[in-house]
């Protein structure tokens, strides 16, 4: 009997995991289904676009700028001095656009947007505001979840695009100011080396990460338990889940785009 305890524990964990995946899949399905079922709430959508997109620009810009700069220094220091003037811009461009841009912007959005969505919705849940919405004939998924998830999915490619450009610019600044590269050559090397596929994959990753980030915030917020502790737990859970899922999705998308 005792020998079976670890197995039983494993079984319970697997069952709990499967149940969580099921609940999450249902939540995702419901969210997406509201896309085609009126009423819609354009005002809430507009506010979500501002909150998630516009107000995230500073943090996205700073993250990308420093990362692009550091990347350029690192490649130069890492033994590429021989043909540094060609290699640095190329690797900065590839690195930023393919991986670092989408991933870092995704993680910043998980920190900034997922947490705030989860805390807001969880607070609404524990103060009965979600119940109040229902009694006022307003579907919480339509009013709260869909606008945020849709806005994040649509606006994240733009944020990632901005992040890519600023990241390359960070590398450019370091290259031209610190390492003494020629500005025109740097830009030419960047432009020649990037392919359309790099850019498409970057923006597509952005859309997927935005979807994940907002959905996690809503899911954990809506499923919050009671009290301030519930809100704290929902917020923490949402950010961890969003970050892990973004990194996992990044791996899968990289595999899909570049392994062929």
């Amino acid at each position: 009997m005792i020998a079976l305890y670890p197995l039983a524990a494993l079984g319970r964990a697997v069952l709990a995991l499967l149940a969580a995946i099921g609940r999450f899949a249902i939540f995702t399905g419901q969210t997406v289904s509201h896309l085609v079922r009126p009423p819609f709430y354009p005002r809430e959508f507009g506010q979500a676009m501002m909150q998630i997109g516009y107000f995230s620009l500073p943090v996205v810009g700073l993250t990308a700028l420093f990362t692009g700069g550091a990347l350029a220094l690192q490649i130069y220091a890492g033994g590429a001095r021989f043909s540094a003037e060609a290699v640095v811009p190329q690797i900065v461009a590839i690195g930023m656009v393919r991986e670092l841009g989408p991933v870092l912007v995704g993680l910043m959005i998980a920190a900034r947007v997922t947490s705030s969505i989860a805390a807001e919705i969880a607070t609404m849940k524990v103060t009965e505001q979600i119940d109040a919405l229902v009694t006022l004939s307003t579907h919480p998924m339509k009013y709260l979840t869909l606008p945020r998830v849709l806005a994040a999915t649509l606006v994240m490619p733009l944020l990632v695009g901005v992040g890519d450009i600023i990241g390359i610019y960070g590398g450019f600044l370091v290259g031209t100011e610190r390492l003494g590269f020629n500005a025109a050559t740097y830009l030419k090397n960047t432009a020649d080396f990037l392919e359309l596929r790099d850019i498409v994959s970057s923006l597509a990753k952005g859309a997927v990460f935005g979807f994940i980030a907002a959905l996690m915030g809503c899911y954990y917020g809506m499923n919050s338990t009671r009290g301030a502790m519930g809100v704290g737990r929902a917020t923490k859970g949402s950010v961890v889940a969003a970050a892990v899922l973004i990194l996992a999705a990044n791996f899968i998308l990289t595999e899909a785009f570049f392994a062929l």
Partner: protein
Amino acid sequence: MIRLTDIHKAFGSNHVLRGVNLHVPRGTSMVIIGGSGTGKSIALKCILGLVTHDSGTIEVDGQDVRKGDRDAFLARFGMLFQGGALFDSLPVWQNVAFRLMRGSLKRPRAEAREIAIEKLRRVGLKPDVADKLPAELSGGMQKRVGLARAIAAEPEIIFFDEPTTGLDPIMAGVINELIREIVTEMGATAMTITHDMTSVRAIADNVAMLHDGVIKWTGPVAQMDNSGDPYLDQFIHGRATGPIEAVR
């Protein structure tokens, strides 16, 4: 019009409702009393479908609340939540007019605002609170905004969860009168939860006392004082000793 038959509801091992039976005729005012934590709020939430009961049936006009068109069902109800449950991202008037600004009852913004201000006046709030955010108001004021929101669309059935808790005695009197008025003038059916015996006498046609997960006593408010029920007597007179254990 509202009929609960053998309603059970448990949260894990906490069996809150253990067979609640209750009937609220159309156009009457039912007041539910009972100690805190006995499941009064949960009972109202079960009727609205905000909480799903484990067993038993709830009918409104003979129709099972779990079946049928949910939107049409909810459109008949107004609810004041125990904590107010105001939307803290919206100014007070948009809270009150929430239902009038979207969905089937949608009307022009200016008109919705006017109605909101009129409803605020009815709960004793001046027009200058209309543009404040809920967080800028005191608890008692928030409660009254919640009340204004519950009655804004003039629903047929209204639930008030502790409408006078946290109000001064004069304002409590105003709110009691308002609830009575809504029932007698608008012909609404009301269910009110309260601990305040003055409110009970002012609002109720019928009273039901919830204890240990069941309705211990129910009857017309006039019979409340000589019911002969020890639980009810203890509650009405606020005695520390009696069949209801006051754990200290």
